[in-house]
């Protein structure tokens, strides 16, 4: 102690922020959760991004499968195939998931969902209950495959002349179109190098007042899935998909949006996972989506 600056935190202050978990179980709070409880929670809060079987929607991370692929040309790195410790899963879900509502899960919920993700990876049975006591005992398949950095692993020479035979050089060109140069030469001031195909969305002047009222909610709660169509969500502006669904009747759509449902193509979480939203706000957002996709 040199400068005596700062103050002493209370135990409560430290406890509130001290959330880290270690492989030996240090940091785990009391609690437990079963695979069965986990399935319910996972389907509601996780499956829209990570897939019902942990297979990952679109570019969202895959959580299960891939065991035995690490030496493949296209290895599949998941919790089951790659992660060395189960503690990491508990720690990460607890600190960062679900993506849109970090640190919203109770400790028991984290135990349950962790158990279920382990189950999806065939690392525990369907009757497994994960607890503060047994987590550190779980051995992950890939645990022994990690070793400390042993670089430098390559040794180049500082050759100055006759370093190679120029006639043997083959030039491999880049795949055109991935980051087209015209996006950063002239008028590319939006910061996006690669424009994905745009969906033709309606002008706001073509929308009803109720639909417009739903725009903000859409952007807050629905955009994450419905802009890109992840988790089987019908894409905004996709007339075909929306016409199909509208045949169920507007009230059914609103009902599904309010209370969630599991369809053939994916899962819609209740209120898009944002349960603090009023029913009216969600209804407006459905208006917005339907009108935008007519």
């Amino acid at each position: 102690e040199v400068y005596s600056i700062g103050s002493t935190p209370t135990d409560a202050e430290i406890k509130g922020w001290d959330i880290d978990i270690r492989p030996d179980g240090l940091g785990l709070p009391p609690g437990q959760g079963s695979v069965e409880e986990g399935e319910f929670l996972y389907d509601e809060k996780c499956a829209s991004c990570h897939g019902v079987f942990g297979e990952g929607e679109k570019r969202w991370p895959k959580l299960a499968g891939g065991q035995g692929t690490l030496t493949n040309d296209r290895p599949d790195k998941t919790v089951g195939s790659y992660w060395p410790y189960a503690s990491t899963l508990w720690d990460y879900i607890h600190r960062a998931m679900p993506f849109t509502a970090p640190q919203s899960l109770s400790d028991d919920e984290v135990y349950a969902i962790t158990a279920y993700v382990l189950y999806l990876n065939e690392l525990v049975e369907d009757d497994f209950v994960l607890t503060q006591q047994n987590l550190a005992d779980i051995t992950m398949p890939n645990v022994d495959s990690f070793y400390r950095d042993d670089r430098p692993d390559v040794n180049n020479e500082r050759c100055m002349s006759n370093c190679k035979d120029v006639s043997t050089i083959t030039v491999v060109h880049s795949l055109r179109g991935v980051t087209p140069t015209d996006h950063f030469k002239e008028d590319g001031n939006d910061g996006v190098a690669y424009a994905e195909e745009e969906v033709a969305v309606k002008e706001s002047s073509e929308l009803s007042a109720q639909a417009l009222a739903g725009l903000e909610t859409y952007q807050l709660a629905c955009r994450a899935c419905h802009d890109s169509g992840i988790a089987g969500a019908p894409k905004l502006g996709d007339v075909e998909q929306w016409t199909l669904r509208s045949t169920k009747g507007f009230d059914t759509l609103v009902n599904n949006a309010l209370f969630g449902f599991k369809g053939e193509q994916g899962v819609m979480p209740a209120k898009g996972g944002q349960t603090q939203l009023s029913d009216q706000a969600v209804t407006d957002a459905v208006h917005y989506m339907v009108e935008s996709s007519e």
Partner: protein
Amino acid sequence: GASVAALSPMALGNANLPPNVPSWTSSLGEGVVSNPYGMPSKYEADTIRRTVPWLTADPISSISFSPLHKLKGIITPNGLVFERYHAGVPTINPDEHRLIIHGLVERPLIFTMDQLRRFPSVSEIKFLECPANGGMEWRGPQMEGLQFTHGMVSCCEWTGVKLSTLLEEVGVKPEGKWVLAEGADGAAMSRSIPMEKALDDTLIVYAQNGEALRPEQGYPIRLLNPGWEGNTSIKWLRRLEIGDKPWYHREETSKYTDLMPDGRSREFTWVQECNSVVTSPCPENPWMEKGWHEIEGFAWSGHGKIKAVDVSLDGGATWQNAPLKGLVLSKALTRFSFMFKWDGQPLLIQSRAMDETGYVQPTLKQLRAERGGNSIYHKNSIHTWQVKEDGSVFNVQLS
């Protein structure tokens, strides 16, 4: 000296060219504090960070690249420093932010931001690089410009407190061998830092290029581990816990480990090894005229100072030393320059840096032979630009 090519901008009309009095000379401009916080010229509107949407699921956990082709010297201006984060940029009120240090210490402490500024401060110019820089090109060239092949590196003057100063305040117990650093963002991003680094050159940083840290860079405070993977320099820092073992959190197991061809993986690959790239010419900076040009670029090494850079114009058959210029600082971008009279012949331009440890930047072939194509991170191999007869420049790989 006579021009070797027509002055193409002449085509724009000559109302502002000599002998005329330009419009901006015959009128008044904007007065002071028209921009109390100034911005670049409107003619530089394309000097911006850019992202590549297909790389990530969502821009909230993504990356944007620095426009290296537009940058000069070794300082990256704050508005153009590359971005990488896992849950978006939090908007933190500094008055309501705290740093807690606890764990295996004699005296846990909690600090306000004002209190941190009372400690002795240091200012150091250091690069910051994402270990995924260049990682899209292990299997072949994919990106069509320097901004995307190398844009996950920036270099700033950072000001803050040495972590060792704060560790002395809390009094690390003898068993304390690791530090867990944790952010206050939605990812509560965390990494384990060994005590040797923490006591060596790790900083708690609150300012960047003179002013307060930018939100994208961790406002109000961040960790800075000079020379190491950018993700270890935890942003929006809220907590440091001292422990006896590493934590093996998601960002040091699932991510930021390097899968080798034998199916095993390297862990804790902290250091950004010696690297370099030619920034002019490059795909965004083609040569418009024949004659003399400055071939320019920068080199950097997480192990210390750059010792030398060589340039090849023939794809690596012959090399010539390219003098370093400006400041040559440890773990900072270092500029090199090579004057070349171009007669219009096609070129394969490469740069190859060597750092003070004697390590020489490897070829991609060497890296691939050792690491295969799936290690994602730490691709620091010699880069090739192809210059065509018309002066246009392309990203290529040689095999």
